[in-house]
C-alpha cells in the first residue's frame, strides 16, 4: 500500500480531472499510474463523459474495470478528456475543450479516447483505459503513435461504463507498447456477474513474437480503397510486407459488406444513443434543472443547454431511425447489414488467422479541420467500425509515420483471439526496434 504523487504537467488538456495524490495497493500493477477515460465510473471522482450535463456528477460506485485496476495495485491518477459521450473522432467535442496531439500540437489526438492517448503518448502515464464504440481506442492510438486494443465484445465488463451504444462498445487498454497493453488487458479481462453480455474468457497470455511464422494474414482490398490516403496505404502495405518477411503468409481477400458497414454503424449507434442519453433529464444528477411551467419544458431546456451539438445531432438521428414507420427502413435494415459484416468476418476467418489493414484512412487531422463537416468525420471511421459491428477484437500498433505523423497498423482477430493479434503486434513491434 502506498500513494503516488502525480505531478506531471498537462500541456495537452489530456485530463478533465487530475488526482495529484492517488493511493494504490499491491499487485501486478502496484504503484503504476493509470489514467481512466472520463466515461468510466469512478467512486468519489467526478465522471463527466466530457459533457456539461454530467458536470459535478460523482458516481457512488466504481466501474468493474476500476475495481480490477485498483485491486491490481494501480493508482488511478485522473480522468481523461474525450469527445462528449464518446461521440467523435477528434476529442474536439468535449465540453472541457479539445485535447491536442503530443506528436504535433496543431493536430487532434483522434477520438474519442483522445485524452487517454495523449496522456500515454506524452509520457504522463504508462497506460490508460479507453473505450471503443466504433474505433475510439484504435483511432487515437494510431494518431498519437501508441498501442490500443479493442477487445472482443463482452470479454471486459461494461458495468460502470456510461453507455453510448451498448451493443457495440467496450473498454480496452492503451499503452506505449504491446507488452503494457497486454499487462493491462490481463487485469481487466474476465467475467462479471453484473454485465449480462459479459463472457467468461479471462486473459493470462504473455506476448510472444514466435507465432508470426506461418500466420495467415488476410488483407481485404476494401481497406485500401477510396478515401484512404495513398501515403498511409503505402506505409501500411510496407508494414504488412514486414510481417511477411517475419514468416507470415499474406492472403489478398475481399470484404464486400464494408459497403454498408458505416451506415449500419451510424444507424445502430445513434439509435442506442437516443435511448441511453434519455436519462440525462436533470432530475437526479448533473447541473440543477431550472424550474419551468411544466416538466416537459424544463427537460427540453436542460437538454438543449447542457448537451453539445454533436450529441444532439446523434440523438435526433437515432430518434428518427427508431420512429414508427422508419424502424424497418433503418434500424432493422442496419441489423441485417451488421449480420452481413459478421458473416464476412466468419468467412474470412475460416481461411486466415488475422486481418490486417490501416487503422485510419489518414493521419491526424488539423485541429478544427473536421468540426464543420460531421459527415467527413464519420467517413474516417470506415476502417474501424467493422470490428465493432462483429464484436471481434482489433489492435492498432504504430507502423511508422507519414510527414512526421504516426500511422497505425490494424490487426483484427477472431472472437476471443486477442492472444493472436497481440502476438502478431508484438512480433511487428519487436522487428521495428
Amino acid at each position, binding site marked *: 500500500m502506498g500513494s503516488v504523487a502525480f505531478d506531471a504537467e498537462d500541456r495537452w488538456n489530456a485530463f478533465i480531472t487530475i488526482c495529484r495524490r492517488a493511493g494504490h495497493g499491491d499487485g501486478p500493477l502496484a504503484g503504476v499510474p493509470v489514467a481512466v477515460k472520463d466515461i*468510466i*465510473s469512478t467512486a468519489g471522482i467526478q*465522471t463527466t*463523459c466530457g459533457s456539461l450535463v*454530467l458536470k459535478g*456528477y460523482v*458516481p*457512488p*460506485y466504481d*466501474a468493474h474495470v476500476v475495481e480490477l485496476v485498483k485491486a491490481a495495485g494501480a493508482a488511478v491518477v485522473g480522468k481523461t478528456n474525450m469527445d462528449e459521450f464518446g461521440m467523435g473522432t477528434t476529442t474536439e467535442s468535449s465540453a472541457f475543450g479539445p485535447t491536442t496531439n503530443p506528436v504535433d500540437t496543431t493536430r487532434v489526438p483522434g477520438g474519442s479516447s483522445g485524452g487517454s492517448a495523449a496522456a500515454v503518448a506524452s509520457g504522463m502515464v504508462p497506460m490508460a483505459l479507453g473505450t471503443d464504440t466504433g474505433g475510439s481506442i484504435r483511432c487515437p492510438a494510431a494518431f498519437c503513435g501508441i498501442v490500443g486494443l479493442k477487445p472482443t465484445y463482452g470479454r471486459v465488463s*461494461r*458495468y*460502470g*461504463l*456510461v*453507455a453510448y451504444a*451498448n*451493443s457495440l462498445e467496450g473498454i480496452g487498454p492503451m499503452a506505449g507498447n504491446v507488452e503494457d497493453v497486454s499487462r493491462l488487458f490481463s487485469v481487466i479481462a474476465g467475467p462479471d*456477474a*453484473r*454485465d*449480462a*453480455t459479459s463472457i467468461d474468457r479471462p486473459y493470462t497470455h504473455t506476448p510472444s513474437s514466435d507465432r508470426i511464422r506461418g500466420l495467415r494474414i488476410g488483407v481485404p482490398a476494401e481497406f485500401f480503397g477510396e478515401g484512404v490516403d495513398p501515403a498511409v496505404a503505402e506505409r501500411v502495405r510496407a508494414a504488412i510486407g514486414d510481417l511477411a518477411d517475419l514468416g507470415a503468409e499474406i492472403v489478398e481477400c475481399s470484404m464486400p459488406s464494408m459497403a454498408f458497414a458505416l451506415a449500419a454503424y451510424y444507424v445502430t449507434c445513434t*439509435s*442506442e444513443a*437516443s*435511448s441511453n*442519453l*434519455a*436519462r*440525462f*433529464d436533470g*432530475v*437526479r*444528477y448533473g447541473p440543477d434543472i431550472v424550474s419551468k411551467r411544466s*416538466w*416537459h419544458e424544463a*427537460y427540453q431546456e436542460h437538454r438543449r443547454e447542457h448537451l453539445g451539438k454533436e450529441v444532439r445531432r446523434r440523438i435526433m438521428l437515432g*430518434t428518427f431511425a*427508431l*420512429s*414508427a414507420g422508419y*424502424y424497418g427502413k433503418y*434500424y432493422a435494415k442496419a441489423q441485417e447489414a451488421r449480420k452481413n459484416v459478421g458473416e464476412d468476418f466468419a468467412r474470412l476467418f475460416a481461411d486466415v488467422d488475422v486481418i490486417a489493414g490501416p487503422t485510419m484512412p489518414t493521419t491526424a487531422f488539423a485541429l478544427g479541420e473536421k468540426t464543420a463537416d460531421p459527415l467527413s468525420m464519420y467517413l474516417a471511421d470506415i476502417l474501424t467500425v467493422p470490428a465493432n459491428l462483429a464484436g471481434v477484437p482489433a489492435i492498432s500498433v504504430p507502423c511508422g509515420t507519414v510527414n512526421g505523423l504516426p500511422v497505425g497498423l490494424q490487426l483484427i482477430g477472431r472472437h476471443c483471439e486477442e492472444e493472436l493479434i497481440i502476438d502478431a503486434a508484438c512480433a511487428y513491434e519487436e522487428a521495428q526496434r
Partner: protein
Amino acid sequence: MTEHTDVVIGLEIHCQLNTQTKLFCGCATDYKTDGPNTHVCPICLGLPGALPMINRKAVEYGLRVAKALNLEVPEESEFARKNYFYPDLPKGYQITMYDRPLAVRGHLEIEGDDGEKDIRITRIHLEEDPGRLVHRAGAGRVAYTLVDYNRSGIPLIEIVTEPDLRSPKEARRFLNKLRATLEYLDVYDGEREGGLRVDANISIRGSERVEVKNISSYRGVEKALTFEITRQKNLIRRGLRVVRETRHFQEGRGITTSARSKETENDYRYFPEPDLRPLRVKDWVEAIALPELPDARRDRFMATYGISLNHARTLTGDLRLAEFYEALAAKVEPTLAATWTADTLLGELNYRDMPVTTVPLDHFTDLVGLVGRGEVTDRVAVDVLRALLNAVVNNETPVKPLDYVREHNLGKGAADAFAAVIDAVIAENPQAVADYREGRGTALNFLVGQAMKKTRGKADPKEITPLIAARIAPKEGA
C-alpha cells in the same frame, strides 16, 4: 342472451410479482414501511453506467403464470426498451417486452353471464415498474413534486386478454379469478397496495374502440366499464360517433375523461434491450410444479365437504378464505362452516372492508360450534360475530364467544321458559290472532317476531313458532 351481448371488452392487467428482490437488481422489494428512496441502488436509479441483470425468480414466476393460464412459451423471448420521458422513469425508458413476449396464446375459464366460458389470453410479459411521484400540494408556486424510486424496478407481469368479455360483470369475474389464480401460484400479494393496475379496451359492436387507462382497483374496473358503456351507448343513441381515444378513469368521481394530451401520442420507439441477452427458458416450464388451483380446489371442496357449488366457488375464490375455511371445516360440521363463512362472515367482512386474515379462527370456530350444538340462535350468533369483528377493528382483545354469550345472558332458553312471553304476545295482539284464525298465515310471523323482540333474540324461532301456532290454532269444528 343478456343485455350486453353487443359489448366487447379486452383487458391489460399489470400486476406486481412478489419476488424478494427487484427485476434487474438486488434491492429488496419490501419497502412498504420504509422511507422514500431507501431501497435503491445504481441500477434501479438508472445511474450512468449501471446495467440490468435479470432476476431468475421473476422469470420463473412469469412462467408459473404462463403454465397455469395454459400459455405457450416460445424458444426465445426478448426484453425491449420502451422509450418515453417522465420524471418517475429514471432511465428515460422502461425495460419491457415487445414483439417477443415471455408466453403467448392461453386461456382462463370463468363463470360468464351465460355460464362457463373461456377467456383467451393473448400474451404475458415481464417489465419493470417505474418510480412513484408524490405531489405536494401548496398554493401556487409552493406546490412541488417528489420522486420515490423504491418502486422503481419492482417486477410486473402484464397479462393481455383477447376481447372476449361481454359485460363489466364478466370483466370483474375474470379479474377475481385471475387474482385468485395468481395468489394460489404464490406470485402475487393481493393485499399489497397498488399491486394491480388495469387498462381496458371497450367498444360497442360496430363502433370505435376506447382505451381506459390506469384503473387501480377491482371495483374501479366494473365502475369504469359501466360508465363507458353508458357513455358510448348514449352517443350512439343520439346519432353521434364514438371517437377512438384514450380515456382516464377518475376513481373518485366514477367517470372517465378524455386524455387528449401529448403523453398519449407517444411513439415509444421500441427496440431490443442491448444490455440483456434474449431469454431461452422454454425448458424451465416442465420443471414447474403447479399447486392446486382455484377450480381444482372448488371441486375438491364439493367432494370432500359436501358443500354446494356456490359455496365452494365463493370459498375458493380467495386463497386466504379457502385456507380459513379448511381450518374451520376440520373442527366443525363442514356445511354449517360453509354457510357461516361464505354467507355470514364474508358479508360482515365486506361491510367492514376487513381481510379474512384478521379474523381469530379459534373464536369463529367456537361460535359456529355454539350454533351447531343449538346453544345459541342464528340471530344471537350474528350479534356475537359482529361484536367480535368490531373488537378486532378497534384493536381490542376479542372476548371468547362462549364467555360473551354467558356474560350477556344470550344462551338459547328452553321453549317452555318462554310460556309467559307467548301468553303476553297473544294477549297484546288480539287482531293478529284473529287474522291468523281467519287463515292469514303471515300473522303468525308477526307474532313470532314480537316474541323474539321480547326475548332479545334468545328464543329460537324454529322452536317457538309451533308453540304459538298451537296456542292460537282455530278450534276444530268451530
